[in-house]
């Protein structure tokens, strides 16, 4: 199997499973001093086409209090920046957000938009560095070097489980070759037969800040209607999806 094939399978397993997906996402932003901030949201995702293709995301925020009832919608396209809309309930306004996927923190966390919704596989050159066991599982170790020079990191090294193709660990190296950011999959569960990372952490080694994410109420193939991804429901998120 080539490195590109591994990464394609990994992308499909990590970000494209099922026709659609939902989860209650709890993010804890933890500073080096231990201070915690919480971001809690309902996340809904629907695929349009094959893995690597278009996706739509709908998010509804429960916490913190100053963003409660805000909703956020993303149309993700392979090969170009996503379209994003934010609904601000205090002034009943929907507006587009101009943010770049590659270098924007998602709600202030250690995850970028790209970490949440995936990176285009053809944007990197992938090579299999080695094959080794990691936390008792047989893994491919893949080195991914961005083709463009617009990224914060110079390369990424991923440990991809050979059995289910989920990324168990990712290491990000800066331009001087120093390791500065680490992703780990901390809990994996089967949901409707789909292996799903239900706990994950992104830790910034230079600042000591980390973000812990846990999924609950996770489900697949729940029949999300196309109409959900509209201004109408951004302004009035359906209760059945935000409970």
């Amino acid at each position, binding site marked *: 199997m080539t490195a590109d094939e591994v990464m394609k399978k990994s992308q499909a397993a990590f970000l494209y499973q099922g026709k659609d997906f939902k989860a209650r996402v709890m993010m804890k*932003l933890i*500073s080096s001093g231990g201070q915690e*901030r*919480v971001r809690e949201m309902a996340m809904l995702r629907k695929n349009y086409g094959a893995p690597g293709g278009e996706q739509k995301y709908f998010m509804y925020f429960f*916490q*913190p*209090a*100053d963003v*409660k009832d805000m909703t956020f919608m993303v149309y993700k396209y392979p090969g170009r*920046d996503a*379209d994003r809309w934010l609904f601000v309930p*205090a*002034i*009943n*306004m929907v*507006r*587009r*957000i*101009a*943010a*770049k996927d590659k*270098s*924007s*923190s998602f*709600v*202030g*966390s250690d995850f970028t938009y790209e970490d949440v919704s995936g990176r285009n596989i053809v944007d990197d050159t992938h090579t299999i560095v080695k094959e080794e066991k990691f936390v008792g599982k047989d893994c491919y170790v893949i080195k991914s070097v961005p083709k463009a020079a617009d990224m914060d990191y110079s390369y990424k090294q991923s440990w991809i489980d050979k059995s289910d193709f989920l990324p168990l660990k990712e290491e990000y190296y800066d331009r001087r070759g120093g390791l500065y950011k680490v992703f780990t999959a901390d809990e994996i569960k089967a949901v409707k037969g789909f292996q799903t990372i239900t706990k994950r952490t992104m830790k910034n080694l230079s600042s000591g*800040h980390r973000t812990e994410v846990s999924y609950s109420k996770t489900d697949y193939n729940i029949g999300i209607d196309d*109409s959900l991804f*509209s*201004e*109408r429901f951004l302004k*009035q998120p359906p*209760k059945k999806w935000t*409970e």
Partner: protein
Amino acid sequence: MDRIRKKIKSGVTNRRRGSGRKASSLSVHIYAAICLLLPLTAAASDISLHGFLQGNYSPNVAESNSDGGDFKWAEERLQLKLDANKEPFQLFLKTDVFYDHIAEKADMELREGYLGYTASKWDMRLGRQVITWGLGDLIFINDVFPKDYEAFFSGRPLEYLKKGVDGAKIGIYPEFASFELIAVPRFEPNHFPDPNRFIMFDPMPGITNREKIKPSSNLENTELAARVYRDVGGFDASLYLYRGFLRQPSALPDNPLAPTRLTFFYPKLSEYGASLQGRALDGVLSLEAGYYDSRQDRSGTDPMVPNSQTRFLIGYQRQIWEDFTAGLQYYGEYMSDYSEYAKNLPPGFPKERKLHELVTLRLTQFMIHQTLRLSFFSFYSPSDGDYMLNPEVKYNFSDHIWGAAGSNIFGGGEKWSQFGQLDKDDNVYIQFRYEF
């Protein structure tokens, strides 16, 4: 932004409060209706109660107020938001209680209060609700709904710039487009800065006998608004229609040659507009335009009623680096029948330009995991030379507490220009909020 017209400020000290919607008879009716609906909340399957406690203080930094006061705003406020759902019904109430240190009294205000109904292809909201249309960042063309400019110039949180309307909104969602239809039986004007708190231009300061007349609530005066929107080639496209009244009053002198009394009224207005927004040039591009049909002065000969206008906006925002975004807008207001206006303007009155222009710049930098926000917003008018500057720092101390400090600085232009006339009203403000 709607212009604070340089013609005549309605110096009528109408209502002291910014949002000004105290226990009017309609509010009483709404409260009564709510009391009747409260049993429904008991039956609701899903009830949430949230809100905040807030302090908001805005001392002057240029001069004292017209009445000698030192603050544009000083209050503590409690807001409660009740959201009760039993599908397909929703009841939403947002009520503020506050103590105003300038008027030295406590009061309450129903910010929003509506009953909603949701079906698969349509929905409805009945009651007091905030409606926001158009794409402008603090510039309003197709958002013809009421604003509170006193709140905006006094350093209050942005949400207080918008006022609710008392009416019905129906949304219809067939496959090919979405529709919003709005009927507002009771007219709500814009709220302009209180002349006791703000030093502003008044071309007829000698005439203190003033009264304000709002359109009476009847079928003929019911405001109607419609918006149709859909995706067009990856862009969000909207068309807008409105039939109602200008929310800025015009003055009618009892005797044009030697006036002793001014009657302020709200001229009839129709508005037709369109907007388009989407990704372009590595950012977000916004285009919006509207034609203001001044139905009581179509010939442009009445100097007291604004002429018809064409308003247009080009906006562009882009992320420059991580957590830093810049937004630029150019806005123009082109007066129809300008020669008629110029010919009929009484001597001694400041003359508006045929084309009024505004440029805005917004810079936003987030820091410390987006808990600290530094922002800067400015208006500058290339045609009139006046400006408004609003730098602000906001910090989220925790997930429940935030504070913001900023200032509103006005100047340039003439003593009657939109922002130039507020030259002596510079203020700094602080806002603290505990949200729950």
